[in-house]
């Protein structure tokens, strides 16, 4: 069924407006682990999501079996949902000019074969598994993803986006005297990742895991702390990122609020190809742009999709993304859900220090690199508790021994009360963040 036919069918079925989201992805994934387990999968997934407005209300449905009969069923179902239970929506987004299209697609990655992906994984694993020491590789996964999606609506909007992604993820372990350190990391690129780069990164990580084997307990108390990019991004994703979107209710944060120190500037940068979620348009066709969400600690804007923008009589910020609803098995493909406001691609403005220079500002403190349990954080109050799985003491300005069993607690606003930041940044999921120095964090140790 052609696009125009779908739009016409929707109109004939009493939809005032209709939006079509067509999605296709190709995934190759190969993994090897220390227990000899090898896995290889190759999948192609296609689907179509249809949103309509009927009698001023919104309805949505989808199908992964694309044929004329199913598409008609989906249109009818979307209209039925709009008429029986849909939320009010006046219009779909109109077509607007896209100012800049970042390079998100590389043909050499799109064309890579299963054989080549497997061969690269094998080369990487066979090299790093030979490492001799207290540390070792546990598993390595090489995933290649090529995505094409289109958004079309009856107001004339019509865009297409192509993306490629290569992610090599790996977990490592180091054991000594009954103490264990596990460390997970990954490399991401939109082009094929060089085998040598992956080998070097994994070997570096194994050696780092060896240096993380817990040695000494820490006394309970409050300490100045250095927080890694990974923890900063993780805590933000469970707290602030949720409350910065217009759909979060009750509204905890408003424009003009001061929620961090002058050192804190958070930028939404969906035009940065280094961040996997980047895109020149959102999933309902609104052009994206660089936005300062927080500048020098002050909230400059919340993030809107088209629906919430209409409610508040303002413009969408280009943050209408199709992310999984709470259901199981999950609907993980974007065509399976309607847009809602979501953070996309974040940069936390770096400073100009090194990690060592941050530590040099602390007499007695803690450097926390990884935690577990942060997903239990309270997005409303910002309170969190987590157990440090990798942490080090800071003594007399130096990062010293790895710490045994430290539970950290605090509030995200304490963390955002940043004193200083490193120049070096790290990509963590959808955030590029520096390491930060914060005034204090509560630590519960075994003593």
């Amino acid at each position, binding site marked *: 069924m052609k696009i125009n036919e779908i739009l016409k069918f929707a109109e004939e079925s009493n939809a005032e407006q209709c939006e079509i989201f067509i999605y296709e992805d190709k995934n190759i994934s190969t993994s090897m682990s*220390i227990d000899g*387990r*090898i896995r*290889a*999968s*190759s*999948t*192609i*997934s*296609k*689907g179509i999501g249809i949103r309509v407005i009927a009698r001023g209300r919104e309805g949505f*449905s*989808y199908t992964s*079996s*694309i044929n004329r009969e199913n598409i008609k069923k989906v249109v009818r179902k979307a209209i039925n*949902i709009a008429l*029986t*239970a*849909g*939320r009010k929506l006046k219009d779909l987004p109109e077509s607007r000019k896209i100012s800049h299209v970042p390079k998100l697609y590389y043909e050499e990655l799109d064309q890579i074969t*299963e*054989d080549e992906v*497997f061969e690269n994984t094998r080369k990487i694993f066979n090299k790093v598994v030979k490492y001799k020491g207290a540390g070792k590789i546990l*598993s390595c996964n090489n995933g290649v993803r090529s995505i094409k999606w289109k958004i079309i609506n009856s107001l004339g909007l019509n865009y297409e986006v192509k993306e490629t992604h290569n992610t090599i993820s790996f977990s490592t*372990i180091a054991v000594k005297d009954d103490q264990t350190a*596990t460390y997970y990391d990954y490399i991401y690129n939109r082009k094929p990742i060089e085998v040598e780069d992956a080998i070097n990164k994994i070997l570096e990580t194994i050696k780092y895991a060896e240096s993380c084997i817990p040695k000494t307990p820490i006394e309970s108390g409050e300490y100045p702390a250095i927080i890694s990019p990974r923890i900063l991004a993780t805590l933000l994703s469970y707290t602030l990122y949720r409350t910065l979107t217009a*759909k979060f*209710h*009750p509204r905890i944060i408003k424009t003009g609020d001061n929620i961090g120190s002058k050192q804190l500037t958070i930028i939404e940068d969906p035009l940065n190809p280094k961040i996997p979620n980047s895109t020149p348009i959102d999933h309902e066709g609104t052009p994206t742009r660089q936005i300062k969400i927080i500048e020098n600690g002050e909230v400059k804007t919340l993030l809107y999709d088209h629906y919430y923008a209409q409610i508040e009589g303002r413009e969408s910020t280009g943050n209408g993304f199709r992310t999984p*609803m*709470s*259901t*199981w*098995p999950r*609907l*993980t493909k974007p065509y399976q*859900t309607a847009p*809602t406001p979501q953070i996309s691609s974040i940069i936390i403005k770096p400073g100009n220090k090194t990690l060592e220079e941050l530590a040099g500002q602390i007499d007695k403190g803690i450097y926390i690199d990884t935690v*577990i*349990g*942060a*997903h*239990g*954080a309270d*997005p*409303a*109050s910002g*309170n969190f*508790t*987590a*157990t440090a*799985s990798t942490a080090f003491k800071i003594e007399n300005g130096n990062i010293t021994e790895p710490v045994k*069993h430290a*539970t950290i*607690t605090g509030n995200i606003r304490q963390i955002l009360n940043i004193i200083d930041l490193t120049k070096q940044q790290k990509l963590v999921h959808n955030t590029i963040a520096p390491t930060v120095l914060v005034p204090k964090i*509560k*630590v*519960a140790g*075994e*003593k």
Partner: protein
Amino acid sequence: MELGELALRLAEHIGAEYAEVRYQQFERAAMNLKGKELTGIIEGVDEGIGVRVIVNGCWGFSYTHNLVEEEVEKTVKRAVKLAKIQGGKCEVKLAEADLAKGRFQFDYKIDPRSVDLNDKISILVKGIENANEIAGDKLKSVDISYFDLWFKTHFLSSDGADAVQSGARFYFAFRVYGLTSSGVFYDSERFGMIAGIEKLEEAIIDVSTRMAKRVVNQSKAESPPTGPVIAILESRAAGDFFHEMGHSFEADSVIRGTSAFEGLKGKMVAVGNLTVYEDPTIPNAWGSIFFDDEGVKPKKTILIENGVLRGYIHSRETAMRLGEKPTGHARAEGFQYEPIVRMGNVVVKPGDWREEELISETRNGVYIAGARGGQTTGKGPFQFQASEAFLIRNGELAKPLRSVGVSMNILEALKNIEAICKEANYYITLCGKGGQRMAVTALVPTMKIKKVIIGG
């Protein structure tokens, strides 16, 4: 399933020594409520076939949504090709197993597909009204994420499994935003069961009542002490602990060397009165199945018996590797995923105590109820966030505590259990592992542990 048989024949014809085909169909409705306002709703049908093969001792996997002969053939060829490119450098073998044959159906009375969306919304709104009535002005708002599902799986394998299981399930997350003098706080509880809509109202009233009472208590809560304490873990909090610990019973983590129980089979790993088993056959429990995603009939598996580690849970591959029998615990989130070793329902044998007795016997300690955000590194610590906590002083719940985080080392905690109660409630979750979510439960009585670390 003609396409399934076609896929099996083709796989064997082009070189697979083993092949399995999983056809699945899911018909679902999902909605989000913000207060009584509907903020998102979808209805949809997903179906597809996952194909997994062994060629020259190596696995290959692919799937398709497109259920036409040509696409299924391409899917089989992709899976076989992936196995072949590994060049026979793996030695996968599957243990003999009790394979399922026939049709199995979970009982339900009201099919979710037959219920109007507005009727489902009306039931959910009753939960919101109930919470508002109990918590009054301490409750600022409520969110509910809800879904229901009718599901069917047809599993076929080249070594003889041919079985269908179907049923209905529903699940919701009830999220509350309460008020304290210092601002707004959040809490949530999840509930799910394999049942029809006939069970929804009772469930939403039960959860909303509990959550509203928590909001009232938490509105006057104070900061907790920091460091090691004696703790009484209420059933659902204990359930989170045993669920996270349960990952160490999964044989793939034992083989990989990340299990806390690696090398400890036959050894005393807990107090002598602790018995733990895994049972995916409990009728209609959230984590139950008639057969796993390798077509194996699951069975009740003793894990710890009177403190001694007795066994692990297995897929056919891990059972072969460790020389044990498959237990029916290879599960996949859907046809798009390969099965991995997963729990179903972890159960701890009840003890003799009553919760009130445990509290009255405790001079100084902390009572911890509910849990969210549980996580473990296996051999390292385990952590979760309590939904509700109270300071215990002289045998009584003295005052509510705010934002209590709980941390333990698994093996230490198992030897620090001082008392186990008679009563247990289900801890229900969708657990993440290997990029997949899985419906699992833990049915664990309230228990007293003589040392946990808390912070807040």
